[in-house]
């Protein structure tokens, strides 16, 4: 490493404002006698980088809260019988063998709907790409499994072919999704997947999901509510798709986007549940 001469040390120190008063006087005297040194100092002074105002756009996504969400007011006594009856009905619906939402979600299925294709199940569609941790239940419910809760939802969004969302009225049926292959090379590129929740009304901490290949389900431990109605949209191979499912834990959609400035692509997620709306980014790191 370079050894500085005394002159260089004083020059650097003066430039950086690190000299004592006596050293400053000494160096200023040297500059007064040495025109070349003065020029050198003036030139080096111009190399100080001007401070720029840079704003980090995703600051909101960094903030955290551990405060539990405020509970909604308890129903009045008069509504209790109705609530009990609804719970019993839901319980029957949950344990029905025709539904596949009554277990812990352990699989991710990425599917791509078409406009008119009837619903199919995972077993019927061999080219479904899945990432499995424990194989108990199919995460993505078929349309038949989700129609019951859908009919109770006040607003259901579907994704048009042009990417614009449109709202449907209460009780409208949702077009059936068809499970679809996602490019496996894209999945393999995802090693570290972090979900950034940019907007949320519930306390969710950012969760990094390590995957060997593909995606793993989002399993934020803070979320313990069950039976959420989830609508996702995604775009795979330039085809927009919508999936509406009834899941016990939120599931993300996959939406590849391109950053305007850098041109880099990233996976974006949009997730809407019956109660909350999220949006965020699904980032990935290439191996």
């Amino acid at each position, binding site marked *: *490493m370079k050894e500085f001469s005394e002159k260089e040390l004083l020059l650097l120190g003066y430039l950086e404002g690190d000299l004592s008063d006596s050293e400053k006087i000494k160096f200023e005297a040297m500059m007064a006698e040495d025109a070349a040194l003065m020029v050198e100092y003036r030139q*080096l002074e*111009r190399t100080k*980088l001007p*401070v720029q105002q840079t704003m980090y756009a995703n600051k909101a996504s960094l903030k955290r809260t551990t405060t539990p969400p405020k509970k909604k007011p308890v129903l009045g006594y008069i509504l209790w019988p109705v609530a009990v009856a609804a719970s019993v009905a839901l319980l029957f619906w949950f344990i029905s063998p025709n539904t596949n939402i009554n277990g812990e979600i352990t699989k991710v299925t990425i599917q791509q709907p078409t406009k008119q294709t009837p619903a199919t199940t995972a077993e019927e569609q061999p080219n479904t790409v899945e990432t499995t941790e424990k194989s108990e239940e199919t995460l993505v419910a078929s349309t038949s499994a989700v129609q019951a809760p859908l009919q109770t939802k006040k607003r259901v969004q579907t994704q048009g072919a042009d990417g614009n969302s449109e709202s449907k009225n209460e009780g409208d049926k949702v077009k059936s999704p068809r499970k679809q292959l996602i490019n496996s090379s894209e999945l393999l590129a995802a090693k570290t997947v972090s979900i950034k929740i940019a907007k949320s009304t519930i306390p969710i901490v950012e969760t990094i999901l390590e995957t060997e290949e593909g995606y793993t389900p989002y399993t934020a431990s803070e979320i313990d509510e069950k039976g959420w109605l989830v609508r996702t949209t995604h775009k795979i191979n330039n085809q927009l798709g919508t999936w509406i499912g009834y899941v016990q834990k939120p599931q993300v959609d996959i939406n590849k986007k391109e*950053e305007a400035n850098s041109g*880099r692509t990233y996976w974006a997620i949009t997730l809407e549940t019956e109660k909350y709306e999220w949006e965020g980014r699904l980032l990935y790191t290439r191996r």
Partner: protein
Amino acid sequence: MNEQQYNQCVELYADGLYRFIVKNIRDEFEADNIIQNTFEKLWLKRDEVIFEKVKPYLFKVAYNNMIDVIRQNKKIVQMDVETHDQPAQYQEYSGLYEVLNKALDRLPEKQRTVITLRDYEGYSYDEIAEIAGLSLEQVKVYIYRARLALKQYIGNPEVLI
């Protein structure tokens, strides 16, 4: 550090941290990743990190993360490799700032790191040494070399540093 202090750190340091990373790595996507990872780590370690010392902690974590990313992506810019085919043209720049910005790109990674920490963030030599894992002497040398290189570029931008 409690939750409120953590969120205060986001307000206080996210912008500067992002500026430091994006200036060094020149990749907004990667910079965003690094910032997210850095604050994720801070959140996980919030019980261990003292609020008053959080800024150098953040910069150190981000710096190490950035080095990992640079190595992974093989983005280390070698000064002697850098563009004979695209010599800087002084006439293209409207002012000193643009020239400096261009020159900054051409500095070796260590020099760029220390000079941005010094000028943008106002860190002392000691703090820079701590963040970048360098000795005090190395910090001084890198800063001095960086300034000489920048000076040379400003004086004659067509001369490769």
